[in-house]
């Protein structure tokens, strides 16, 4: 082996060792989760799902106040079409936290409170778990599906108030899955979504604590793909 090849081999080994050391010191975990909304209607039950991809990983904690972890999510809202043509959307919200909240209650007492659950998430692959009401995603609909400013919050305890008698939320479930991330379902219904850069429901209110839930919504609450 020539000298230059030996040098290259040593360099490659050093790079590989550094990469391995990094991965061991700062591990990362990812999984896919399927959120399903089931509702009862006068015409029978209907359901819809959305598959999201979530990742959590450790990061170097250089400064005392720096976070030792980070996360990412690829998700879109669950789009449920009722038999009468109305739509219910379960927003992306806290897609990066919902599996932790549902599957780890109480949380593990040892280790990082986010990375430890993330490291164990795949153990639940294929299991379907009910999402407790306190962890439900934000539900919304539109009075006029073509007008983003008509967005309205939907009370999960009283879907009938929005959609009419006989409509009720049956359950929300979460499953760790190997299914592909769902994409494009929201845009297929909300054709204006990509053209909206500001609030869906514009407001001139001065203070943030005066805003209604609807006035805090942006396109990123519907899709983070």
């Amino acid at each position, binding site marked *: 082996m020539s000298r230059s090849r030996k040098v290259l081999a040593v360099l490659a080994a050093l790079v590989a060792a550094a990469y391995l050391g990094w*991965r061991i010191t*700062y*591990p*990362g*975990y*990812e999984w896919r989760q399927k959120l399903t909304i089931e509702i009862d209607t006068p015409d029978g039950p209907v359901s819809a799902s959305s598959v999201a991809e979530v*990742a959590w*990983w450790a990061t170097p904690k250089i400064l005392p*106040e*720096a*976070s030792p972890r*980070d*996360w*990412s*999510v*690829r998700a879109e809202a669950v789009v449920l079409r009722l038999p009468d043509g109305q739509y219910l959307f379960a927003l992306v*919200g*806290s897609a*990066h*936290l*919902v599996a932790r*909240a549902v599957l780890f209650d109480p949380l593990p007492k040892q280790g990082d*409170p*986010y990375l430890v659950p993330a490291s164990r998430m795949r153990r639940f692959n294929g299991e379907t778990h009910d999402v407790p009401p306190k*962890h439900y995603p934000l539900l919304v609909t539109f009075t006029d599906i073509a007008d983003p400013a008509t967005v309205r919050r939907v009370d999960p305890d009283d879907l009938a108030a929005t959609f009419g008698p006989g409509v009720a939320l049956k359950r929300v479930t979460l499953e760790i899955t190997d299914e592909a991330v769902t994409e494009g379902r929201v845009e297929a219904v909300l054709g204006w979504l990509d053209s909206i*850069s*500001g*609030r869906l429901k*514009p*407001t*001139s*209110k*001065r*203070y*943030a*604590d*005066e*805003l209604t839930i609807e006035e*805090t919504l*942006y*396109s*990123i609450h519907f899709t*983070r*793909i």
Partner: protein
Amino acid sequence: MAISKDLFLSILSMDAYNRGCSAGLGDTGVGDLDGLGETGYVGNARILARPSGTDLAGWQDAGFYALAYEIAAEVGTGSDKLLAGDTVIACRGAAAAGAGRTGFVRPRSPTPSAPARLRFGAGRGNPGRADRCRSCPPAA
């Protein structure tokens, strides 16, 4: 106990790191994405609503985040104070725009009707964090 204006501005500068996408502080609930939330008060500073046209997705793509506060009651000691009605802006992730330092500027009010004084705090964040918040693949 009265605190100095600079200390209070520093607190607000750090506050921006703990709100919004990829907030530094973990959110123990699942009701929102934004750490400490994006409403309410920090001491005598009340969080202002973003203008409705703000391109929040664009902010995240650029790794930028900012909050504006209105001072509700004067803060500071001696003659160096924030006055009621002052506006303070704190941001993070502005390093790529050349503002990668923490500091404050005091532009002159162009007209009597404009806010009397404007404070601006720009902090160096982790430029990649907000990007990953939207769509980037995990690092690991």
